[in-house]
């Protein structure tokens, strides 16, 4: 080891506190990049490979019933490569281990060979064999929840009749990466099960021989998707087509895409913040180091060392810090990436390639952090190199202070001189103060971003499941039933209150724009279903016309007062012109609302319902559920509390982990900023502070001057951080998974703001106290006896 390297090593040991805090910020930046980038790649690559290998379709359509020959017609549409007609049916699964029956979605498998599109990835067991009518391949997560294995049986109500299905295999499908049942708000592995069954068995059970009610397509490369969808709708129109859609609107894909896009948006921004903070701190620390080592640099130069050697000396020093940080970051990143993918694996069911450090990603992260560090110390090193030795031997010219114009304000003229010292120091280096405050602001914003999701969570659940959906149980019917059906339900055991509404699938069309959704017809006096907007204010359905969610209005480019077309997907399937009488800013879905009677008029039908809402006596709920399951026309039963618990459990867990990690990360920034600034400040001002001690100032008074400066930076940073966090939260909401499915209201609780501020203050105070300890051991005499 040469002498300069020895010096480097000893200097670093002396600077260990500062080096370590900066290395931690680098580590967090690198870890962030590796985590996000690895997750992004793992999700993206796995998705692409999975879609390719299991032939995920490009276009989808549900319909009532069409003869198999219609598939040939579809095949003739220009741009269509593969047509795969299927039968898909909703079934109830009255599992022994649950009160409310689970929901199954039976998907037909071709009689011979594998499905040409939307193939099934069999994880255990085998495909059902043709001819064995009761064999099914079950969605693996559902099987796991219920302890089902190949050989187990599941009770299922097919077309009103109870069957016993035999599980022969467990599988996954690109169609159900995020499995969410029709009309559901989140995935629920316990209650929703896609199941695959041979075509002959389903057709027999549902009387669909020689027909299909679902079709998926693969398009030719470069095909015009929109044109294909329009043609598909035209062909399926006579067969009760419910509207064709592309991959983009396929629910599972749309949620997965949304998540990937969200990671992609953060993959640059978040690590960049950390590396920028590290670069800034390296600049602060190395500028001071070079000033302190002025004399040493002069001597080394005087004896003949080259400028490049001296520059390299400091570059090496920073490289050691960054290297330590990077290596820590790679380790932390690899671990976090794994944890993040574990978390994703709970929601997104796809075979994921993982378990290794993505080398190019790690290398990019390390290169990025070195680049940031070199930018950070560039000026300091330049200063060291360009200083002529003779000048370097002399003490540096004294710092120039000046009175700021603000001091002319009479009130400010009366402040204590110690306050003035703090003020002038800040005034002398406004940029440093500004950047330090920016660092604090970012740290605070990051804490808010990690936590705000929780805030909207409680109130929105309360709104949706407390005030809006006031029922305990909702029941969907396979077909509409007369209003008197409600009377029947009211007499079932345990039913306290009953209400019903009518839902109908439609295509909303305004000019060239259209979107498939539903119109919900609510009775005006409904006790069990009320409407609220995201601002938590109650909304009313106008006496006539249509109330639509504002997201749907945006999609259609329509506003209240406009007349739009509503293409019915049942009844006479006619097209009606309806006026939009208002919009509602709701958290879930893109539906429209009408008075129930108006909807009946629109459908040209008598009073009917297809969803019933029940308020029940909890002690008799089990009995009631059994009775409901026995009703042949019941398609699904939802228990609100279960839904709520599931939603809370899923989002709650994720939130907690994210809050913790981001809070720790942000703390690293706050600690590094305050600690390093305070250390440098102590080094710069030790003489002033010692003087004050000699003059009779107490330790507390002297600390107040040193830490006052840090306090100002922190307090300047806090309001900016609050604003930044608020805007960041808004930005993040706009990026959220699937805005058509769920829109988190913009709500940041005051306790989140308070929590963020407290974390920052605690981190700042602790860092400051670490430095204050050094103040106590200030050598009063030594400092005063030497010339700076």
């Amino acid at each position, binding site marked *: 080891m040469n002498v300069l390297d020895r010096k480097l090593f000893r200097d670093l040991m002396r600077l260990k506190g500062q080096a370590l805090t900066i290395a931690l910020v680098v580590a967090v930046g690198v870890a962030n990049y590796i985590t996000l980038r690895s997750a992004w790649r793992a999700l993206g690559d796995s998705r692409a490979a999975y879609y390719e290998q299991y032939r995920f379709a490009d276009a989808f359509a549900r319909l009532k019933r069409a003869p198999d020959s219609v598939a040939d017609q579809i095949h003739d549409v220009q741009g269509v490569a593969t047509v795969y007609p299927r039968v898909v049916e909703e079934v109830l699964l009255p599992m022994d281990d649950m009160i409310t029956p689970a929901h199954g979605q039976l998907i037909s498998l071709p009689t011979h060979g594998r499905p040409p599109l939307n193939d099934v990835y069999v994880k255990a067991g085998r495909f059902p064999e043709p001819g064995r009518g009761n064999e099914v391949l079950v969605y693996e997560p559902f099987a796991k929840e219920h302890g089902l294995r190949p050989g187990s049986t599941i009770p299922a109500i097919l077309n009103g009749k109870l069957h016993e299905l035999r599980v022969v295999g467990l599988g996954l499908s690109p169609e159900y990466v995020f499995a969410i049942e029709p009309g559901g708000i989140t995935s629920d592995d316990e209650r929703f099960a896609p199941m695959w069954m041979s075509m002959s068995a389903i057709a027999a059970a549902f009387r669909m021989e020689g027909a299909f009610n679902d079709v998926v397509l693969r398009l030719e490369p470069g095909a015009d998707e929109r044109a294909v969808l329009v043609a598909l709708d035209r062909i399926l129109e006579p067969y009760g087509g419910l509207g064709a859609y592309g991959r983009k609107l396929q629910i599972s894909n749309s949620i997965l895409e949304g998540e990937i896009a969200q990671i992609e948006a953060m993959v640059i921004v978040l690590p960049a913040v950390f590396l920028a903070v590290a670069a800034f701190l390296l600049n602060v620390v190395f500028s001071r180091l070079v000033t302190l080592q002025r004399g040493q640099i002069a001597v080394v130069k005087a004896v003949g060392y080259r400028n490049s050697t001296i520059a390299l000396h400091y570059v090496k020093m920073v490289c050691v810090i960054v290297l330590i940080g990077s290596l820590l970051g790679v380790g932390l990143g690899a671990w976090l990436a794994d944890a993040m993918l574990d978390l994703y694996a709970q929601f997104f069911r796809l075979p994921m390639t993982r378990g290794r450090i993505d080398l190019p990603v790690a290398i990019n992260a390390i290169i990025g952090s070195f680049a940031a560090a070199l930018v950070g110390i560039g000026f300091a090193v330049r200063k060291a190199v360009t200083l002529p030795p003779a000048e370097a031997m002399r003490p540096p*010219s*004294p*710092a*120039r*202070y*000046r*009175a700021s114009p603000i001091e002319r304000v009479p009130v400010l003229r009366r402040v*204590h*001189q*110690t306050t*003035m*010292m703090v003020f*002038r*120091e800040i005034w*002398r280096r406004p940029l440093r103060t500004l950047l330090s405050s920016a660092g604090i602001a970012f740290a605070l914003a990051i804490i808010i971003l990690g936590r705000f999701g929780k805030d909207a969570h409680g109130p929105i659940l309360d709104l949706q499941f407390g005030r809006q959906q006031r029922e305990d149980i909702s029941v969907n019917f396979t077909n509409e039933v007369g209003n008197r059906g409600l009377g029947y339900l009211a007499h079932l055991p345990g039913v306290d209150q009953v209400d019903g509404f009518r839902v109908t699938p439609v295509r909303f069309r305004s000019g060239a724009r259209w979107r498939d959704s539903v119109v919900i017809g609510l009775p005006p006096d409904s006790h069990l279903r009320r409407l609220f907007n995201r601002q938590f204010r109650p909304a009313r359905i106008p006496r006539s016309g249509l109330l639509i969610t504002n997201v749907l209005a945006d999609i259609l480019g329509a506003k209240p007062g406009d007349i739009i077309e509503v293409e019915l997907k049942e009844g006479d399937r006619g097209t009606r012109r309806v006026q939009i009488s208002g919009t509602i800013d709701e958290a879930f879905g893109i539906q429209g609302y009408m008075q129930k009677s108006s909807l009946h008029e629109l459908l040209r039908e008598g009073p009917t319902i297809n969803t019933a809402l029940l308020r029940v006596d909890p002690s008799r709920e089990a009995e009631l559920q059994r009775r409901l399951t026995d009703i042949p026309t019941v398609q699904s039963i939802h228990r609100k509390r279960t839904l709520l618990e599931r939603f809370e459990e899923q989002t709650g867990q994720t939130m907690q982990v994210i809050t913790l990690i981001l809070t720790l990360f942000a703390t690293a920034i706050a600690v590094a900023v305050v600690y390093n600034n305070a250390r440098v400040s102590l080094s710069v001002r030790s*003489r*002033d502070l*010692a*003087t*004050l*001690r*000699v*003059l*009779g*100032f*107490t*330790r507390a*008074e002297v600390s107040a001057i040193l830490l006052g400066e840090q306090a100002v930076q922190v307090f300047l940073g806090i309001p900016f951080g609050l604003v930044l966090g608020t805007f960041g939260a808004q930005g993040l909401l706009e990026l959220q998974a699937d805005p058509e499915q769920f829109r988190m209201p913009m709500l940041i609780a005051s306790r989140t703001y308070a929590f963020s501020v407290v974390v920052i203050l605690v981190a700042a105070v602790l860092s400051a106290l670490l430095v204050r300890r050094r103040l106590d051991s200030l050598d*009063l*005499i030594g400092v*005063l*006896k*030497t*010339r700076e």
Partner: protein
Amino acid sequence: MPETNPNSERSAILAAQDVSKVYQMGDVEVHALRGVTVPLYEGELMVLLGPSGSGKSTLLNILGALDVPSSGQVLYHGRDIAIAGDRELTEFRRENVGFVFQFYNLVPSLTARENIALVTEISETPLDPTEALELVGLTDRMDHFPAQLSGGEQQRVAIARAVAKQPKILLCDEPTGALDFKTGIRVLEVIDEVNRSLGTTTAVITHHAPIASMADRVVALSDGRVASDRTNDEKVSPAELTW
């Protein structure tokens, strides 16, 4: 043998009593003071003479409560401050002692007047900062920052700052050490003026023997011991000093 103290009947405001100070420098013990007894009498101007390494700065620091002795007592009005804690020492400095150092030690971010106000803000019966500056003849420079003042001017501000709280004792450690002859004389004049007009008990450390002529009393230190302690009967004004 040290000479017998000719002032033993006068009252000492501050006194080092048999004070020793041992520093540990690595493996070596350095005896900076070896049983030194030096009283400081009310209102006098004492010059503490000695070559470098004789222990005079150590003695001054101990008298000024910047340091504590290894053994012996430091009596202020008869009370031993050598056994006081940090808080009491700070309090003692704050109330009673003014310091002037070789390197001025002004706060660079405060103007001359503000440097003085720094002290007057924490004192109970301070002079007005302007008054203190008047005393050292620098009222016209009061809004200048230290970097805008010459060395002599900075030292005069430092003296003004030291006396502005009207301390009982003014301790000056080589106050002219960094200054040229003419400026040094001007600074000594100010110290003399403070001693006479305010009656502040003053101790000046120097290794410059001629400065002793302006003192009421001269104590010489050598190798950590008092070599002599005498009253100066032929006191001259600083303007008459030569070296």
